[in-house]
């Protein structure tokens, strides 16, 4: 949504906190565990972008996470369509959320969040620092890491970040491609501004770029 108008102020009352209600971080934890325990299918982030666009903007942040977590579980077949509704009714009827404890599993789950998978080096990258590149004009159908506001603009490669799976094909599943940090003049992205000039830098996959 880079460059869109009409969203108003950034700093508003309550905007400084990470979450407002207890359920929000429990949804965060459920989403994390659905990933580490391999209970879901697809990427939460890509699935959130499938939300009806008006609903996406109306929804709160963790409301989107709740929706995408349910979708991942349904798509894997871990739970059925009516199961959450069934429990909503039981909770309304006064039942409590069931509890189970397993300290070993809890410790292993925390440990799992410390794993990292860094970008690997890209010695054969097509572009290098100083190269002028143009972002391709395109209209991808589904998840992409190429923001609309940069398409068609020309920038300069500042660094080769490394190789990573191309996310537009399947989240974390596509073939690996070089990723470049590309700097753009604000004038090339947004035209003249009373603020003068600044630089916007994006990390762009090789497939998004052509030589300029």
């Amino acid at each position, binding site marked *: *949504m*880079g*460059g*869109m108008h009409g*969203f108003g102020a950034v*700093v*508003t009352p309550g*905007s400084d*906190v*990470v*979450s*407002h*209600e*207890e359920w929000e*971080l*429990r949804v*965060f*934890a*459920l989403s*994390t*565990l659905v990933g580490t*325990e391999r*209970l879901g299918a697809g990427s939460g982030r890509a699935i*959130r972008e499938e939300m009806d666009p008006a609903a996406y903007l109306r929804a*709160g942040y*963790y*409301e989107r996470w*709740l929706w995408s977590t349910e979708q991942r*579980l349904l798509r894997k077949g*871990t*739970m059925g369509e009516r199961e*959450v509704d*069934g*429990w*909503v009714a039981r909770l309304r009827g006064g039942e409590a*959320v*069931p509890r*189970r404890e397993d300290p070993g*599993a*809890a*410790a292993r*789950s925390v440990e799992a*969040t410390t*794993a*990292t998978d*860094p970008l690997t080096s890209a010695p054969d990258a097509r572009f290098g620092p100083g190269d002028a590149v143009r972002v391709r004009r395109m209209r991808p159908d589904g998840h992409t*890491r190429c*923001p609309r*506001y940069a398409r068609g603009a020309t920038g300069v490669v500042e660094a080769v*970040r490394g190789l*990573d799976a191309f996310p537009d094909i399947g989240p974390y599943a596509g073939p690996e491609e070089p990723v470049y940090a590309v700097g753009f003049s604000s004038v090339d*992205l*947004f035209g003249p501004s009373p*603020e003068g000039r*600044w*630089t*916007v830098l*994006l*990390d*762009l996959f090789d497939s998004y770029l052509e030589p300029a």
Partner: protein
Amino acid sequence: MSHDHDRVHDELALRAAALEAVLVEKGLLTTDQIDAIVERYERDLGPQNGARVVARAWVDADYRERLLADGAAAIDELGYGGFEGDTMVVVENTPDVHNVVVCTLCSCYPWPVLGLPPTWYKSPAYRARVVAEPRSVLREFGLEVPSERTIRVWDSTSEVRYLVLPERPPGTEGMDEERLAALVTRDSMIGTGVPSLPA
């Protein structure tokens, strides 16, 4: 908060609890697994970690060099790493450059050093505006960047996560790492603020 807002949140809290109930009842997750993840991200991961990284870079020139060359590796030296920190790049503020970080596509943020992002970072307003009118947005945070200083806005569009290394404030000569770390605010590591001045 309006009555409608409360009602919506009650519904969402109920639905979140129902989802937890489904997964616990099936024996797929335990209650303490969920508690442990919440606690990890509420207590262990937060800007206090990033502040230690910044303070170390301020007092140790070799560390600063390693941090700017390979952020994740230097951050790992202090014991921080994990989800959303696979590849971390540290960008340095100087008298000529002010860096600010955003994720216009979603909410990418370096969890190991900053924890989970504040609400404004995830808001459509920040995501839409900071790339297109950075000085107006920074002014809302009370930050007036001198006009001769270039602003560089980093839009975290790939798996790379960014941390700003702010300038060490004047009047802090001779301060130890711990006292310096206390001056490093979360916003100064996102670029929407600068470190506090010593009292």
